[in-house]
């Protein structure tokens, strides 16, 4: 008996408290905001012009002058990484925002209305889900041509069905709850039922998925850029910077490591934020 009590105590102390989660959430939020701020003000804080070429200092190793070294055109890598963050992070955020809002609205509509429209739209989204994502994105980006905006459009085309499926399944489970019936009995119309009673109760999982997706989308955008279908040179973008440096991995590793590290840190940060958001929205944590 004593042993069981002790075990329960240990278990309870391991359980995250609401306060711990909140502190963690604020910490990661602060880091992400800092990252966003740095990216937004990139043009002001870069030590060198990220586009100025100087072949006399090409491929220099990291030094006190150039903290991350220089690339083959003599451009300062640190400045390019900071500048590249702007392109990569904000296009990933834009992308996630588009697919979250669009996918959720489609899913909520389908789940709530049901019937033939629902079946039709869900089959359409099945078609999108049937293709391997990256291959489809390459095809779309290939048709639309290069450029970061086209890369965002290409990834948006293939990513929204995930959200509509999620939102739809959530709506289906919430739709039959007594409080939705009670809201109808209170004389609320369909709009009010959806936006006041259903959406606030399904937004949690969607928000978590969206936050976790920022990292994934960033990787996919960088991937498209790496393949030459995203940001066009000379625009600083982490994926295309890595692509440019890949031939020099053995001679000048910093050219590929600097943007690679930036992607690694940023993706991890957004993933940690996503995890924490999930914990924070978990009603079971007291």
């Amino acid at each position, binding site marked *: 008996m004593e042993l069981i009590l002790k075990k329960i105590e240990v278990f309870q102390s391991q359980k995250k408290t609401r306060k711990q989660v909140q502190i963690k959430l604020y910490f990661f939020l602060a880091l992400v905001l800092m990252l966003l701020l740095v990216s937004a003000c990139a043009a002001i804080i870069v030590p060198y012009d990220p586009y100025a070429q100087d072949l006399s200092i090409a491929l220099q190793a990291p030094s006190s002058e150039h903290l991350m070294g220089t690339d083959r055109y003599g451009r300062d890598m640190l400045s390019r990484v900071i500048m590249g963050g702007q392109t990569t992070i904000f296009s990933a955020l834009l992308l996630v925002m588009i697919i979250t809002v669009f996918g959720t609205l489609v899913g909520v509509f389908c789940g709530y209305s049901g019937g033939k429209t629902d079946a039709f739209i869900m089959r359409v989204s099945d078609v999108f889900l049937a293709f391997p994502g990256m291959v489809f994105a390459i095809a779309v980006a290939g048709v639309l041509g290069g450029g970061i905006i086209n890369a965002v459009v290409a990834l948006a085309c293939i990513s929204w069905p995930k959200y509509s499926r999620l939102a739809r399944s959530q709506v289906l489970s919430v739709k039959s*709850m*007594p*409080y939705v*019936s*009670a*809201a*109808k*009995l*209170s*004389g*609320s*119309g369909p709009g*009010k039922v959806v936006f*006041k*009673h259903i959406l*606030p*109760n399904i937004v949690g999982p969607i928000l978590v998925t969206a936050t976790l997706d920022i990292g994934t989308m960033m990787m996919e955008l960088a991937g498209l850029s790496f393949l030459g279908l995203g940001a066009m040179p000379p625009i600083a973008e982490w994926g295309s910077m890595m692509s440019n440096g890949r031939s020099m991995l053995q001679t000048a590793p910093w050219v590929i490591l600097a943007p690679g590290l930036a992607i690694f840190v940023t993706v991890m940060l957004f993933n940690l934020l996503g995890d924490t958001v999930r914990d924070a929205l978990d*009603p079971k944590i007291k």
Partner: protein
Amino acid sequence: MSKILEVRQLVKEFSKGSKTIRAVDDVSFDVCSGECLGLVGESGSGKSTIAKMITALESPDAGGIFLDGKGITGLKGREQRAVYKDIQMVFQTPTDSFNPRLKLGDGIMEGMINHGISRPEARKKMLETLKICGLSQEYADRYPHQVSGGECQRASIARAIVVNPKLLICDEATSALDVTVQAQIVELMRQLKSENHMAYLMICHDLALVQQLCDRLLVMYQGKIVETGTPDEIIMHPREDYTKRLIDSVF
């Protein structure tokens, strides 16, 4: 006594694969003003489906439902919402019947605001009704998960009676609560019954409770009404085989 609700030859079928099940099979009954009508039967006998059809959460396959002589089946939008001024329901699971993201008070006021009552007035009425249902003012600002099941069911009753409906449907309103809390809720209902002139439709499988509250009883079995009468008549002298079995299973 005037009839408030008339249900005529109501039919509802559910198809399960190739099989069709008649959940409600040619059911007719009346509810008079000030009356408390009990609807008893085992699970799956179609009691809740009737409640859902009266409140338009399900649409009947055949038959009619009349409120004060006017047909209320197949109404849409504004007309349907007007009916909800007169018909209200208390649900089986109290905590689930309130939106977890809204305060109890807001849930109770929603109906009044939808029917065009101003917010301060609605709040005043809501607090009064909470008091009638035995809850203090603080409960208005609590969330459903912060109160007990019994308290939540009181709030749920408050939400139903705050718009002064003519008919209150209680769909197993006490079966999710434990026995002592059940008794309190029954006491509250009895008190409301003596004070207001609402008609009640009590859906229940607890015969003892029905005996305490109801003036008249309908026994349902496999979608059909098999017996009607006063609770004492039915419990003491059941005519149908099924009713006998139902009573034997309790006593």
